[in-house]
Every structure is written in structure tokens, then in C-alpha cells.
């Protein structure tokens, strides 16, 4: 590879430079994995994918892919406008979206309300750890679609069942991250607090909970992400309103444009939530990773 690195203009030379480990420019750190900015490449990649979609599906270019499998961007956009204004199956896009966001939000609040205290209790007390470890560790790796039938048998096909499924998806990451957060609190901080006259309860509240905050927020962010991942499964059965339900019923009628539109909308909302949570993290724990 060293020959190629020197002949910088040839294709292999450029390829070689991508992976070579020559001395770093001043300001860069030698050997640091993945240095450099990738924004331009990312934008080019996104445009490239979109272009590919457009080229292969646009009728004027003689569509290479049948609309049934992949409708053109224009078609999906038209569908977006029509569902947004007229609706799909008697519900507008806003109503579908609101129903899903509401479900995720309620399940999220419940998961945080239970997950964080239980995570704290498990991390600080062996009895709680002993009690909760087996059920949580058992169900955590299961795919939600796997226990979906059970939630239907137990909770019926109403709103409760959907919330239970979303709750379960969000609960485990919140518990686990809260535990990791408690472990990340430096023992020196705890010792210092006791030596300043703090009681056990005060240490728990003023040191351990505060110190675990960065990981707790990460848990919330991952939890919300899992919620969106599980949305379609949660709205699979007997659901009138919701983005997941909209996608499922569109797929039954082979309305691929609505399916794709729904996927894109979920993607955008999920990503926005993620950005929102990152923003909250920066506001609430500006000290994260800086001590």
C-alpha cells in the first residue's frame, strides 16, 4: 500500500490514502479513528439515494421499477398532500400522527415513572436487584412482535394493549441506563457527601440521582427511539388511527405510496424527537463527559 500512498493522483493512491496512517496534519490527532468532517459526503449520499429513487421510478424515464414496488417521489409527495388534506381511511395525516405521538408520549411517561425509580432501586439495593433482574433480563431481548399475541390475550385489542407494548419496549432501556448511571457515579463523590454530613437519603437524592442524570437521559432518548421502532407492531391489531395502522392497512391494499409516505413521516418524527432529547441533554447535563 505504501507505493500507492505516494502516487496520490491514481485511483488506488486515493483509495490508499483513505485508509493509510501517515503523519497527521497539525491540528489533527495521529491515529485517531475517523477524524475529519463527513457532512458533505453525507449530503452527497442522501442526494445520491434520492436521485437513484427518482431515476428508477419516474415514468418519463421509462420506469425500471413498477410503481407497485416503488412509486416515484412525485407520486409519494402527491399522496402526502392528499392524505394531509383529505385523509386516508377517514383520518387525516395529522390525526394519524397525533394518535401515534400521544401513545408514545403516554407510554414514555409511564416507562420513565416506573423505569427510573426501579433502576435506582436495583442499582442501590441488592433485594430489588434480585427481584427485578430475572424478569427484565428475560423479556428485554425478546422482539416485541414475539410477545404481541400475549399482550392481546391479556389486555384485549383496545388502547391498553398498545400502551403496554410500547411501555415494555421503553421500560427496559430506561432501567438499564439508570443502573449504568448509578454505577458511573464516582465513589469519591459519595464519600465526600457523607463526610460533609449528608444522610443516606440525601446522598441518594443529591449525589447519586444527579450523577446518574446523563445516563438516565440517554435511557430516555433510547427509550423513545425504541418506542418508534415498536410503533407499527403496537398498532398492528384493530387500530383505526395511527401512523403504524395507516401503513399496515395501506400495505393490505397494496397502496405502496402511502406505505412509503408513512415510513418517511415516522422517520422524520422519530429523528426530531431524538434531536429534541439531545437538546434537552445539553441543557440539563451540560457537564456530561467533561469531568
Amino acid at each position, binding site marked *: 500500500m505504501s507505493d500507492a500512498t505516494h502516487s496520490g493522483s491514481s485511483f488506488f493512491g486515493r483509495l490508499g490514502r483513505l485508509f493509510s496512517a501517515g503523519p497527521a496534519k497539525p491540528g489533527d490527532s495521529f491515529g485517531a479513528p475517523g477524524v475529519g468532517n463527513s457532512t458533505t459526503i453525507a449530503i452527497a449520499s442522501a442526494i445520491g439515494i434520492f436521485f437513484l429513487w427518482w431515476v428508477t421510478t419516474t415514468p418519463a424515464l421509462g420506469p425500471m421499477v413498477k410503481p407497485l414496488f416503488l412509486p416515484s417521489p412525485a407520486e409519494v409527495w402527491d399522496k402526502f398532500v392528499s392524505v394531509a388534506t383529505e385523509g386516508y381511511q377517514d383520518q387525516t395525516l395529522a390525526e394519524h400522527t397525533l394518535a401515534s405521538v400521544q401513545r408514545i408520549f403516554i407510554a414514555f411517561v409511564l416507562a420513565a415513572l416506573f423505569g427510573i425509580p426501579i433502576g435506582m432501586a436495583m442499582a442501590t439495593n441488592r433485594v430489588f436487584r434480585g427481584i427485578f433482574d430475572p424478569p427484565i433480563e428475560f423479556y428485554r431481548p425478546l422482539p416485541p412482535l414475539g410477545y404481541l399475541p400475549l399482550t392481546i390475550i391479556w389486555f384485549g385489542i383496545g388502547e391498553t394493549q398498545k400502551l403496554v407494548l410500547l411501555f415494555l419496549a421503553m421500560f427496559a432501556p430506561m432501567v438499564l441506563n439508570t443502573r449504568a448511571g448509578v454505577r458511573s457515579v*464516582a465513589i*469519591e*463523590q459519595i*464519600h*465526600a*457527601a*457523607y*463526610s*460533609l*454530613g*449528608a*444522610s443516606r437519603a*440525601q446522598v441518594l437524592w*443529591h*449525589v447519586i440521582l*444527579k*450523577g446518574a*442524570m446523563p445516563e438516565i437521559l440517554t435511557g430516555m432518548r433510547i427509550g423513545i427511539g425504541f418506542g418508534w421502532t415498536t410503533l407499527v407492531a403496537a398498532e398492528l391489531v384493530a387500530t383505526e388511527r395511527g401512523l403504524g395502522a395507516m401503513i399496515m392497512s395501506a400495505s393490505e391494499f397494496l397502496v405502496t405510496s402511502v406505505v412509503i409516505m408513512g415510513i418517511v413521516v415516522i422517520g422524520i418524527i422519530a429523528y426530531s424527537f431524538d434531536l429534541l432529547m439531545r437538546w434537552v441533554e445539553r441543557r440539563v*447535563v*451540560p*457537564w456530561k463527559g*467533561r*469531568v
Partner: protein
Amino acid sequence: MAQVKGRPASKKAKSASTKSRKNSRPAKGGKATGNGSGKELRAEAVTVVYPVKEGDDVHALEKVSLSISPGDFVVALGASGCGKTTFLNLLAGFIKPTEGNVTLGGKPVLGPGADRGVVFQKHALLPWLKVLQNVTFGLKMQGIPQDKRRDMARKYIDLVGLKDFEQKNIYELSGGMQQRVGLARALTSDPAALLMDEPLGALDALTRDNMQELILDVWRETHKAIFFITHSVEEALFMATKLIVMSPRPGRITHEYELDFCHRFFECRDARKVKSMPDFIEMREEIITIIRGDELEGGNIHV
């Protein structure tokens, strides 16, 4: 002049003579001031054995006795693994001795408390709180109202030179400034004793020299009983009124020295001068020889 009194510590295992001082110094004032200023911190024949799963148990400390009175600056020095941190943890109340006991002003130490302030090497500040809130954290835990805390802390904030940094975040401060916060925080509860485990160990040489002087000044001003662990022989000699050298396997005090180099510093305010005095250098070499011997024996140095 430094009186050299190297002697085996086991000889001076003192019989319990604490009864007479039990009631000699009632805690002054109310809860607000003083968590027991003016009390003597004492370890009597303490032994600590750590259980080890395989092999022999570790005798981290074997019948160690030490008393630290108000105004004493006791420095502990020794090869790593000789039980310095274990001993500090005992004094702080984080662990209890396998045998023997620890008392403060005649009362047994049963756990950590605001009457013994601890300064750590690092990672002990609370980064979600500003400097001022860190310094007053102990007062808050002790239930002192917010408006009073600031007044009580001001003296110590000024003393360690943090006046203009009260509203800064911890992570904006240099290592030296962070240690000042740790020091001020421990002082603000007005403890009887101050326990420091290599508080300057993570600082660069220049900052370290400055902090040595700062700690000495703080000690002279507050007249606390101080127990200070360090790896640096020079630092130990410079700061101690009483230097204890510890040895591992089992951990014990092998030498004790009464020193006055810190007082010489107070006279001339020139640390370099004190540290280059002939008897300082002589003591330094003597102690380095002792510690090197321990480290060689323990196989920590490969020649």
C-alpha cells in the same frame, strides 16, 4: 532543627488514656458552627485485614496507633500498598477496623461525618453545582438555610482564593482550582480534622508547589488537625510537623519524625530556600533510602 526520632512504631502503642480528655472540650456553640474543632483524632492499635478469595488475607494495617491533635500536620509517606489509604479510610469512618478503635475527642468514630473533612485526589466535586454551591454543599446537607450558608462559607472561599470563581462551573476550572474548591468545601463544615489522600497527586509541578503553600497557610489560619498522604518525599518533609513512614506487608508505621520545615517556611516565605537547606536534603535522602528499600522488597522497582 529537625529532630530525628526514627523508631519502631510498635513500641509506642499507647494504652488507652482517653478517659481524661473525654469531657475536656465540649463542642462549642450550636450546630451551626463547629463540628468539633479542637478535638483529637486517635487510632489505637488498629488492624485491618482484607479478606481475599484466594491465598492469604491482606494485612493492610497491623496494630497501628497514631494521634493527631489540633494544630498537628501529620504526613504519611510510604511505598504504594502500605496501607495509607486504608488508614485514611479508617479515620474518615468509611471502613471499620478489624481490631482496635478510632476515636475523635474520646468518642468512637462509627462512620463518616462532618467532623472529619476529606479532600480527595480527584473526581470528588459535584459538576452539576457551581463552585459556591459545591463549597456550601455540606452546610445544605446539615440543614442550614440558604442565606446563612454563603456567609459561613465566605471566609474559606477567600482563604483559598476562590472569590472571583464562585459562579463558575467546576468543569471550567483547572485542576489546581478544583482542589481549592475541594479544600474550601471540606473546611466550610468546620471539621475537627482534615484528611487528605494525595490531594496534589494529579497536579503539575508548579501548581503543586503553589498548593503546598496554600494548604500550609490554610492550616496555620484554621489550626486544624491534618492527616495528609503523599507520594512525594519533598512535599512530605516540607509540610509535616510530624512525618510517619509506613511499610507494607503488614502495613505499619516504621518511622516517625518531628519536623519544623513548615515553620521555617512561615518565617522566610521562600519554599525553594527551605527545600534546599542542607538538613532538608539530608532528611530527604534518608527517607528515600527507606522507601526504596520497601519498594525493592515488594518488587515494585525492577533494577
